């Protein structure tokens, strides 16, 4: 294992009761890259993210984050390093968008302090960046699914963590906002050297944005590596059991997947 590793997973496994969910996961993820986690439904992607954020404890093996076991971190310390954009979230008793985004600053604000100038700046910039400044006084339980999702992305941005984890975060967004959020994530990785680990269902988005792909099937990492090496018709057939071809798209200058829809 190299020294320059953000996450190092050794022989990690996990089970709900007696059902094994993740098995024999050995990984070393260097920082500063855009990782895509892909695989069929129920293959353990969300559980995998849960282990990375320390929300669940692995059954066997070790997960080391920045040189320290993930469970040795206090939640507050970890929250300054890792931000999660979940797929869905409770809206509780109806906070405003601005209050939700401000919650991203929680790990940075002392218990008895009020938000500082810097905290409000981070909140404003995050809302500006996602384009939800106009919604800031709206209550989240009156928003559409897509608007809520964008508020949560803004919250993760305000958290200002070097590592961002997306759990199918764009599933309820239309194509415009999906691309907007992927472009922001891409920019954070390119310009600021942050790390993004995203569970993605859309293989073409994964192909266009990710530096590295992790293919998961039945609780195992089937293969992982640079996108242009791992994204092949053979891998897709093995992981998803569908026929596809991977072609170079001259419009985007990137590899794209074309699926075989039906046979005549």
């Amino acid at each position, binding site marked *: 294992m190299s020294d320059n590793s953000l996450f190092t997973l050794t022989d990690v496994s996990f089970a709900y009761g007696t059902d094994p969910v993740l098995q024999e996961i050995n990984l070393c993820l260097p920082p500063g890259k855009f990782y895509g986690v892909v695989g069929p439904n129920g293959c353990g992607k969300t559980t995998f993210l*849960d282990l990375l*954020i*320390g*929300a669940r404890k692995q059954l066997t093996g070790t997960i080391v984050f920045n040189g320290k076991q993930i469970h040795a971190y*206090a*939640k*507050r*310390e*970890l*929250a*300054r390093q*890792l*931000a*999660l954009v*979940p797929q869905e*979230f*409770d*809206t*509780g*008793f*109806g*906070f405003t968008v*601005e*209050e*939700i985004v401000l*919650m*991203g600053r*929680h*790990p940075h*604000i002392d*218990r008895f302090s*009020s*938000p*500082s*100038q810097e905290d*409000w700046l981070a909140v404003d910039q995050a809302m500006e960046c996602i384009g939800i400044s106009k919604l800031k006084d709206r209550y989240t339980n*009156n928003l559409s699914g897509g608007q809520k999702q964008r508020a949560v992305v803004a919250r993760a941005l305000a*958290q200002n963590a070097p590592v961002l984890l997306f759990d199918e975060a764009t599933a309820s967004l239309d194509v415009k906002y999906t691309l907007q959020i992927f472009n922001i994530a891409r920019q954070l990785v390119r310009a600021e050297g942050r790390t993004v680990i995203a569970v993605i269902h859309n293989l073409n988005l994964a192909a266009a944005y990710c530096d590295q792909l992790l293919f998961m099937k039945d609780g195992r990492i089937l293969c992982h590596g640079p996108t242009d090496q791992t994204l092949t018709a053979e891998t897709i057939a093995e992981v998803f059991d569908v026929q596809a071809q991977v072609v170079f798209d001259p419009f985007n200058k990137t590899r794209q997947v074309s699926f075989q829809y039906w046979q005549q």
Partner: protein
Amino acid sequence: MYRHSEKKYYLLVSALFLCAVLVIIVSTGMGYMEIAPEEILRVIGARIFGDSSLTAGIETTIPYVVMDVRLPRILTAALVGGGLALSGVIYQGILLNPLADPYTLGISSGAAFGASLALLANLSMLGHFSTPIFAFAGATLTLLIVMRLSTFNGQISAQTLILSGVIVGAILSAGISFMKYLADEQVAVIIFWLMGSFASSTWNGVLLIGGTFIFSIGVTLYYGRDLNIMSLGRRSSDTLGVETAKVRKILLLTASLVAAVCVAITGIIGFIGLIVPHLMRYLVGPDNRKLLPVSALAGAILLLLADTMTRAVLPVEVPIGVLTALIGGPFFCVIFRQKQRGKSYE
């Protein structure tokens, strides 16, 4: 630095505080013997500063009525009202369920069960405090059982907590009914205690509930911001830096402590813990750091008004628990309907 003006909130807190003080003084003057507010202040002042010249010219029975009869009862009513509202805010905040209160979780039934047991067996080995102590033991035991029942894989979920509370509460209610059946002559004592009363309040009780209340509101305000964030669900709050599992346990224990002490001292008083946080949320929004002080004050005022009504206004003393349920129940139906109607048009 605050972005929005907090003026409205501070105005509301001050108004409620003044209102509470006013209601305490006015209700002390009400009753079989009418006492002027000025005389009440002089009596209290004389006791606090030890200056007997202040009571000069006041009838000799008045200091006794004010200090030993009315004030303990009035302060107990106010503190219990505040305590029940406080526990309501915590339960609703943690369980994300506006219907949560000490009853939903079986805590009150547990306390009532313990107290009924003490009354039935005529246990008096602990003197005056045997009923409150048994009530408190019952409440704590119930909380532990409910929490144990709803813990799966080391985690407590809101749904399982409410379900467990309802199950355990139903079993305990059946137990109480059985005890009433066995009680024969004692049954009136049990029934009266279950309906709630402030009639036998003492200064010791005031100190007990007052101390518990101050401790609990301190703990809850300390975790106020965490409680707000916990309303987003555990996965989100964990990654925002909140020790969700730990804070949830601490706050549940705190809320149950207040609820248990309240029930132990006065019997079962419903609807305050349910309605007050509801109403106050309309006024100050969902932020628990604002909701807590406001709800505690409003709960104190409301319960004190209800108790004064039954003590000094109504021709017969109706048990306070019956009164709050009779007023609170229909009122709750109305806000429940309005809220649901609002929702369906959104």
